[in-house]
């Protein structure tokens, strides 16, 4: 498949920090590609360099086979961008904003169609300043689609939305994929990344740690399941049990986490050991490993730290 976004050895040096330290990315047409990482990992800087907002200090970028500095107007006509915070005139209405931004492009989608897509018909004549956070976010999304773009960039599209708002936004992103658009988004929600993205790059400290489909990334851990034990009070020190059973028990935020490839064999041993140690646990859960565990494994830190 032809590559819609091609990034090689991308670098950005800020006065005090190397924000992006040699990033390689390859995104195929029609793919939803996610940049997953904690705050400050360099996701937004990477995205903004690809969008042509921030000039890189090194490396190469190709979008739709075009290059910044040579085909700027052409690239801008073919991409749609939702910035982390979209600021508009206070007293512009969604309808006017869509008409106005649409007029900048050679190709445009109808304002009514976009209003319907993001469910803003009822607010189409309200001033931007009166929209709720979710409505403003949906307008920003509609603005990113105003030119019927081939490639859409979404920077933290669901930040600050309630669960219902997040789900309806996910539907819009799935719709984009259905329409054959290439989508590149950043997020620090692993569930979002897992649900939406065909492929992911996990970023930390300006570097890509691993790339793959969510399934591949989780499978690469080699530990499909995680056993979780909760306690009534503070969890006891797992060191003794860890040595006795020879399993990697970690205490995190009031919970013991025990990654395992074979929960069926491990659980009885664990429970017997707990009984003999007279450790009074509250509940036992077995869950499959998530991207959070992948991130933990790769960085030694939690995504939300």
């Amino acid at each position: 498949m032809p590559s819609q976004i091609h990034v090689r050895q991308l670098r950005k040096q800020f006065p005090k920090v190397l924000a992006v330290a040699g990033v390689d990315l390859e995104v195929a047409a029609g793919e939803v590609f996610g940049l997953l990482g904690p705050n400050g990992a360099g996701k937004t800087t990477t995205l903004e360099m690809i969008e042509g907002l921030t000039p890189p200090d090194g490396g190469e970028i190709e979008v739709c086979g075009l290059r910044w500095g040579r085909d700027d107007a052409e690239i801008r006509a073919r991409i749609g961008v939702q910035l982390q915070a979209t600021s508009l005139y206070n007293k512009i209405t969604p309808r006017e904003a869509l008409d106005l931004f649409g007029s900048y492009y050679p190709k445009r989608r109808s304002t009514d169609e976009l209003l319907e897509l993001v469910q803003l018909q009822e607010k189409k004549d309200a001033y931007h300043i009166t929209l709720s956070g979710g409505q403003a976010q949906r307008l920003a999304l509609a603005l990113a689609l105003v030119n019927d773009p081939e490639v859409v960039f979404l920077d933290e599209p669901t930040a600050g939305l309630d669960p219902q708002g997040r789900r309806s936004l996910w539907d819009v992103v799935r719709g984009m994929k259905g329409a054959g658009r290439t989508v590149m988004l950043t997020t620090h929600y692993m569930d979002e990344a897992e649900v939406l993205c065909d492929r992911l790059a996990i970023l930390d400290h300006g570097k890509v740690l691993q790339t793959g489909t969510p399934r591949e990334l989780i499978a690469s851990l080699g530990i499909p399941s995680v056993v979780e034990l909760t306690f009534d009070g503070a969890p006891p020190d797992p060191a003794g049990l860890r040595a006795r059973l020879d399993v990697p028990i970690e205490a995190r935020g009031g919970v013991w986490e025990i990654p395992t490839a074979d929960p069926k064999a491990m659980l009885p041993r664990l429970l017997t050991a707990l009984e003999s140690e007279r450790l009074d646990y509250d509940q036992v859960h077995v869950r499959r490993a998530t991207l959070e565990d992948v991130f933990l494994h790769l960085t030694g830190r939690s995504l939300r730290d």
Partner: protein
Amino acid sequence: MKHPNPLALLRQQFRIEWRLYLRDRGAMFWSFLFPLLMLFGMGMIFRSGGSQSLTLVRVAPAQESARDAAFVRALNEAHLKVLTLDAAAAEARWRKGDTSAQLESVGEGYRLRLNSYLIAQGNLAAQAASQAFMVAQARLAGSPEPERIPMVVESPGHARSNTYAAFLVPGLIGLNLLTMGLFAVGMVTVSYREKGKFRRLAVTPLPKWVFLMGQILQRATVVVLQTAVLLLAAWLGFGIVNQGSYLVFAALVVAGTATFIAMGFALSSLASTVETYGAIANLAFFPMMIFSGVYFRLDNAPKWMQSALMVLPLSPYLRALRAVFNDGATLAGHGLGLAILGVWALAAFAVAVKRFRWV
């Protein structure tokens, strides 16, 4: 792919800027009403009806002598309104600050007491009184009357623009330009940059110059309208009209608009937050508003101060504007002033082009 015609986009940016400006009622109300309030307020307060209304308070002497009578007659002939009060009433009026000049008898002679707060009117009354005194003396002595020198109060150029309101009109036009440049252009630019409005535009194919030009044209038309409203109000309210060439006047307004817009853009490159910009803009705004001759001329200020103020762009600009508007003069003799303005315009333009930032 066929990109939209930039001129069509420019027309559209201009239209949307205007539409959004009209929605901001508060700002619009003030930018149009403030100059009118100043014009009518100050124009009324300082309405001078010419020399006829000059009042001289006279403290009634214990006994009116023939000499006093002759003096009063001569004073009346000099078109001075003589208000004779007893000592207590005169003192009360003086203390209230209403008296500009007061005539008192001292022994055989007289004394004039002038109010330092109303020194302009006081001086006029004193001069008229001195002339009247000479006339009265000549009459009493039976010698030939000295000739009176007639006095008229009017602006340097034309008798019709002799009110304070007329002086104020070009000042307020200049002040409008300054406010527009520093705040409607400079402050708005900083706030757009700070809030990321420019960033959202930067990812679209809209050429940046189209956006800026749309903004500039909108501000320029606002200023032209403000000027027109002010001129209309001055004409209807005070009968003040432009005494000089309308073409030169219009050219000056256009030149001023360009200069102060460029200044706004230049200053906006010095600050990254609206708060910092506000401090910088006020630093530029207040000295010019107060000392550059919007409300009064600084002819009595020390020479060095006047020279220093002439270096600011508003002072030479207002001098040229007043020469045309109030005095019906040409721009001859304003070469240096206009050159100063031109240097400001070019420097501001250069800084604006070189230092302007979108993010």
